[in-house]
């Protein structure tokens, strides 16, 4: 037992116990309460005392060299080495199960009833969340939020706050974020299936770690509010030091324009200035890099000259600074973004560029079935959201890479579709978006629904294929989504 005793001794000699008085003092200091603050470390005096104690017993070698995973100083920093994923293993961390298909009477239903769509996977201070929709009996979609438990189970949250089980063809969930103990999910609610195609941008907030939820309809601008056909689509939500920001589009029945909303607390929301009344911007997503909110999207409605763009805000969405990712606007070609993720060293945006007047977007059926179209898959990297550089182009068959997630080993690029042999195309890039290598897909193949980060490691939600779950039952495949985590061996 010498080795076990020494392991315990090393740990306890390294860090002194934390007393209740120290905890109280830390909690009562400005900005404390720690887990949900993004600013500099608090209580510098206390930190200095701790450092002095640690130094006095000579254990600085336990300081991690600074990446997401702990690496002892002096050892190779394997976390940014692409080879660190060479032997990586996918570990299943549970499955998300639909409920409508298993409800009473479900056996009488047909088609895709209960089919799950997972739009976002997010690791937040209060847990690991997924947001998406479930298909209802009338063919519409019902908003859903799930949270992972500690025994690989996923619990559906929210109850009636997300509406009843009557679906709408325009209901969708965009994302989820947390700040100061409040979790906020964002999406749009559509009217009943068959009703006029209007949508309400909506935020759902919970201040008890997802136990109870409250819905808030986000306000529309005065122009849009005056239109009987006004509606909005939500593209993403992020939480930063200056509150929550939601981005998307607003339609007044004639024009579709970019939109943003902001909130200090997730409960009270206001329209944030974003774009102009004449802009046509397809907003893709929003991320937070350090203390800066970064929105990415495509200008120009995919017409010649459409271009990938980014907008940054350092004041919680009150003002925005645009940045070009591409000079395509000066040509007759088009470029755009399909996904973005924030890693430890910067942001990586994934997109495409087309020469000439072709306007199909990679991932669409038209592009996939017309290999003659000249589509380049493009990566842009930015350390701050303001300046962007293009990384080495991707040479990929078919519709290509459409999702990016950031994890401990760098970025993971994932195709939404699988190859003929059932393998998903997954590439790993270093944290600065340079070197890349192919990563084996999770067991079973099938398609990937979304990717995210779990405990610092990249995770993926996967549709359950025949070889993944051993089932050929179409309904089970539609109503179950497996969640996997890629962990270096």
């Amino acid at each position: 037992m010498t080795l076990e005793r020494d392991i315990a001794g090393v740990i306890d000699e390294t860090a002194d116990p934390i007393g209740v008085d120290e905890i109280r003092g830390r909690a009562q200091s400005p900005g404390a309460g720690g887990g949900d603050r993004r600013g500099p470390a608090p209580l510098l005096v206390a930190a200095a005392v701790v450092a002095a104690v640690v130094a006095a017993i000579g254990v600085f070698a336990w300081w991690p060299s600074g990446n997401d995973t702990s690496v002892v100083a002096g050892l190779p920093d394997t976390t940014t080495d692409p080879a660190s994923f060479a032997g990586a293993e996918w570990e299943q961390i549970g499955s998300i199960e639909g409920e409508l298909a298993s409800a009473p009477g479900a056996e009488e239903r047909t088609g895709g009833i209960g089919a799950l769509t997972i739009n976002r996977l997010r690791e937040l201070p209060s847990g690991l969340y997924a947001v998406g929709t479930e298909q209802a009996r009338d063919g519409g979609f019902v908003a859903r939020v799930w949270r992972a438990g500690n025994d690989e189970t996923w619990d559906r949250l929210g109850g009636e706050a997300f509406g009843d089980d009557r679906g709408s063809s325009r209901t969708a969930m965009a994302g989820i974020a947390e700040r100061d103990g409040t979790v906020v999910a964002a999406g749009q609610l559509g009217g009943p299936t068959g009703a006029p195609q209007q949508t309400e941008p909506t935020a759902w907030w919970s201040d008890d770690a997802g136990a109870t939820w409250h819905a808030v309809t986000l306000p529309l601008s005065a122009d849009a509010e005056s239109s009987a056909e006004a509606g909005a689509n939500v593209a993403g939500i992020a939480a930063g030091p200056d509150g929550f920001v939601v981005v998307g589009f607003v339609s007044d029945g004639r024009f579709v324009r970019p939109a943003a909303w902001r909130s200090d607390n997730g409960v009270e929301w206001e329209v944030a200035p974003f774009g102009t009344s004449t802009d046509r911007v397809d907003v893709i997503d929003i991320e937070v890099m350090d203390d800066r909110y970064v929105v990415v999207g495509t200008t120009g409605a995919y017409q010649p000259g459409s271009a990938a763009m980014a907008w940054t805000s350092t004041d919680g969405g009150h003002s925005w600074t645009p940045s070009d990712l591409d000079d395509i606007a000066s040509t007759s070609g088009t470029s755009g973004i399909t996904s973005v993720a924030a890693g430890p060293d910067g942001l990586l945006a994934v997109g495409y560029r087309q020469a000439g007047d072709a306007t199909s977007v990679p991932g669409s059926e038209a592009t996939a079935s017309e290999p003659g179209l000249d589509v380049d898959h493009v990566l842009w990297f930015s350390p701050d959201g303001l300046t962007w550089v293009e990384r080495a182009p991707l040479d990929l068959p078919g519709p290509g890479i459409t999702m990016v997630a950031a994890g401990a080993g760098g970025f993971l690029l994932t195709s939404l579709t699988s190859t003929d042999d059932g393998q998903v195309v997954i590439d790993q890039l270093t944290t600065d978006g340079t070197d890349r290598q192919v990563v084996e897909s999770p067991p079973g193949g099938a398609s990937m629904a979304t990717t995210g980060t779990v405990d610092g490691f990249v995770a993926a939600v996967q549709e359950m294929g025949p070889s993944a779950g051993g089932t050929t039952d179409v309904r089970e495949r539609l109503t179950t989504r497996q969640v996997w985590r890629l962990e270096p061996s």
Partner: protein
Amino acid sequence: MSDQHVQTTTAGTFEAFCADAEPKLRRALVGGFGAEHGREAAAEALAHGWKHWARVAAMDNPAGYLYTVGARWARRQARRRRRRLLAGAEPTVTWGSRFEPGLEAALGGLSRRQRQAVVLVAGFGMTHAETADLLGLSRSSVQNHVERGMARLRDDLGVDQ
């Protein structure tokens, strides 16, 4: 009822919780993120628990929740530290351990999950179930991490047990 009021009336409850949870959180986070960030992360997480005790106390697994809070804090600090190290000099202080020679390097060679599982289960005798609840893992994952981690430690250190 405000969190502040609850802190006053349930201080004893928090102290009881802290007596049980503090060693687990500190050891898990120090094992995962090192001495500096790990202890600070545990203190930050517990301060978060104190500040929001009414909400945290009602959770099914408050220690597991606070572990997640602490781990997230530690990762943010690690990112900042990495930027500092890239910009300047890195401290080169040697280990002054009186324990098994090479143990610190061998522990550093494990994955973070392996190191945490080894520390909590092998080092401090926590059960697989307790460790799984704290770290948000399945019991089988904890068992795998302990077995692989201990095997690698013994191999690296050249010890039989």
